């Protein structure tokens, strides 16, 4: 009974966290419900917001039963107009926003009784951030962002302070496959923050201005005229010198940009992006580029608070829960891993 609970790692260290799944049906919603339950037990006033079409009864793609979100009285939430009527949790409306979804406008409110609720939200990460702050102003102590898969940006440090990564059997057919693919994501998310504080400030300013820049070893900075860093490797390559120490990409790090840089570099260079969500390099390329000498850095890092595993796949296969849990724990010894489906050790066998 001495086990640390997921919620202990989350709160009060963080005020806004994102729950991101590695794949469809990886167990994100179960994770979310578990955090909600634990927060309720601790008496933490929650705010809930989603970046996608979550909280619906059925998963649109695979048609599997999807657990909806069960909210407790007093929880602040972002929902949609059409979900407020009916038998769900009674919702006290605080604000009707101008953001439209196919299910009506996005509404900020508070649950006045326990019940199931449709959690919704806007798409843009800036707006999500605004609404998170709004819920905090309304009184939420901890805001949980239900990040949909294609909206990884909710994990960006700009939006949330920490991320819980939900992974599971649906990601691959074998335990090794699941562990490997999850490891890859964790590795990209864990790209280190640039060590030198002055370089970090320079890079931050360049990205803030939307500019790609080269920083030489003597600290001098050159701004390049690239519209975006996407496909801008060519242009950057032309400016690389022996003393170029850092390349700041204003946009994303893609395989082609990084490759161009590595092929043309004249000395050791580190490539800096805003945060790990700006890295778009497939696993296979990542390995090769690493061998070519790729050194990635970020201005702001992502804090992975924990990983949750789900041994079931809706495709009809499953892994031995304890084996998956152990394999994941061995693979990422520095990050706590929980099995929220089984409830971990705590509720399975006492």
């Amino acid at each position, binding site marked *: 009974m001495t086990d640390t609970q997921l919620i202990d790692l989350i709160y009060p260290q963080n005020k806004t966290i994102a729950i991101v799944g590695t794949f469809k049906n990886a167990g994100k919603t179960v994770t979310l419900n578990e955090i909600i*339950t634990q927060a309720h037990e601790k008496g933490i006033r929650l705010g809930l917001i989603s970046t996608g079409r979550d909280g619906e009864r059925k998963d649109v793609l695979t048609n599997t039963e999807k657990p909806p979100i069960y909210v407790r009285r007093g929880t602040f939430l972002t929902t949609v107009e059409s979900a407020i009527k009916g*038998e769900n949790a009674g919702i006290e409306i605080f604000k009707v926003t101008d953001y439209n979804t196919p299910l009506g406008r996005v509404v900020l409110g508070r649950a006045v009784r326990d019940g199931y609720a449709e959690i919704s939200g806007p798409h843009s990460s800036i707006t999500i951030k605004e609404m998170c702050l709004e819920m905090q102003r309304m009184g939420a102590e901890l805001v949980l962002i239900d990040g949909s898969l294609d909206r990884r940006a909710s994990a960006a440090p700009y939006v949330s302070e920490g991320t819980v990564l939900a992974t599971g059997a649906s990601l691959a057919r074998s335990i090794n496959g699941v562990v490997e693919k999850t490891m890859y994501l964790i590795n990209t998310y864990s790209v280190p923050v640039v060590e030198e504080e002055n370089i970090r400030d320079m890079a931050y300013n360049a990205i803030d201005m939307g500019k790609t820049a080269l920083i030489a070893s003597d600290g001098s900075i050159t701004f390049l005229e690239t519209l975006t860093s996407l496909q801008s490797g060519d242009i950057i390559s032309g400016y690389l010198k022996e003393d170029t120490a850092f390349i700041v990409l204003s946009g994303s790090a893609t395989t082609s940009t990084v490759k161009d840089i590595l092929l043309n570099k004249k000395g050791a260079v580190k490539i800096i992006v805003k945060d790990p969500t700006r890295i778009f390099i497939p696993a296979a390329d990542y390995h090769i580029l690493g061998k070519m000498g790729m050194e990635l850095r970020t201005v702001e890092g992502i804090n992975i608070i924990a990983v949750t595993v789900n041994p079931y796949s809706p495709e009809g296969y499953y892994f031995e829960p304890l084996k998956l849990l152990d394999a994941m724990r061995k693979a990422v010894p520095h990050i706590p891993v929980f099995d929220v489906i089984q409830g971990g050790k705590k509720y399975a066998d006492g």
Partner: protein
Amino acid sequence: MLMDEKTKEILDFEGVLADLHPTTPFGQVLKNNMKAYGACDKEQLLEELDRVEKLKELINSQRAVFVDIRTHMRQIKNIRKSVERCIAGGVLGVVELFELKNFVYIVKSISEGQKALHWDIPDKYTVNELQWMEAVLDPGGTGIKTFYIYDDYSRKLAGIRKQKGLLEHRLDVLKKDAIKGAEAELGVSVRPSGEITVSKSQTELMDKFKENSILELAGETYINITYRVRPDCNMLELMGEIESLKGEEAIEEAVILEELSSKISSRGKEILEVMDAIGEFDLIIAKAYLANGYNGIKPVICDRAKLIIVNGRHPLIESALRKKGKAFTPVSLRLEKGVTLITGANMGGKTVSLKMAGLLAAMAQYGLLIPAEHMEMGMNAYIYISAGDGQSTDMGLSTFGAEISAVKEALIKSEKEGLILIDELARGTNPHEGYAISKAIIGYLADKPGITVVTSHFDGLAGKGIRHLQVKGLRNIDFASIKEPESISGYMDYTLIEVNGESRVPRDAINISRLMGIPEEILQQAEEIMGREM
């Protein structure tokens, strides 16, 4: 209709309206339906102009109040449809009631803002507080701006909820006891929900749970089973009662929504009136802000055909020039019934002056203040302009064909007092016939009740009964001193001066061509030809 679409387009009247920014959806609708005051609505136009002028003064003296009012107005959403649906007997949903409640508070703030203004507000603009609706939506007088079907709405609802709360609490206590009991008996911990999940591989545990009457099966997946602490008969009875109370609550909530809707419906007209007043108030504020932008003045409206503009500025060209760091040279015009002919140098601003006259007249008749030092005009039944551009190609007509077909429209209208503006009459045909047609049209319009302004390069159009204005142009300028063609405008004197008697159109075309860089060889040739003719 004051102007046809083509005239509006040539004058770029929409360009002026684009800078008119009402902040509420109601003001926006009024703006979209804005119409010019008719030739017989002089009194109403005067009233409107007085009010816009008054508002402009108020904005400058009580700016903070207006900033406050506009901030509140910006929060208004278009909920007219909800109110109309409600009046028609519809039941409002909770989101709609929330928006109405919000509206009540915004209206209150706007109304307070109005009271702070030093203005004797006409009824049309007076935003009345909706206190009765505040009482309906906030019966407890809590001042809470959120919305929910609160207990305050009915005693019955409060009673149901209280009872439900009590039972839920009792159930909770029993549940917790049961869980504690189960944990003690089974030696395992149970989730707060009362559930416990075991893997099917844990056969011993599974068998133990299966046989225990404290637990019941709650669910099963591929590899594990979830049991739930079985509720005893007291708990079951409580659960049943809670369920039935929930049903009663839902019914009572629906009844309350109906009651609220019917109360709002019975005085729904008043809400619509408030929306109308907000729209009117919003639009007139927007007009005043617009006038502030170009420092507009109230025109004098008189009874006979006349258009006097003293130091008028074209608001759109002025603002475009200002962005380039240049200033618009104001133009003064004095136009009377009959025909006025404007001649003058190329690039002398004849077209701009013509368009400015039309635009300022149109703005005045739409109840907008005027970018000028002084303006006097009579009511126009129409404003019509013909100005050269490539629009004729759309209609498959030649430049001349398009112009003549449009001038025909103006000739038909010319029996009433109005404004006809024709830029370079008959420019698209041979000078010989063009001159003849121009002379005849000018002669015809000279006796009509309206004002006609014609710009032309033809000599000899002016004559008896025709006023003749000329652009001062590049007179007394040493062309050799002008280096850059772009600087011509700096030397150009746009002033219009009245010419009496016969006067020839100024000869600046060759000089300007020279500045623009036409080869000297050609220009000398042209001068030679000119010399031969003269």
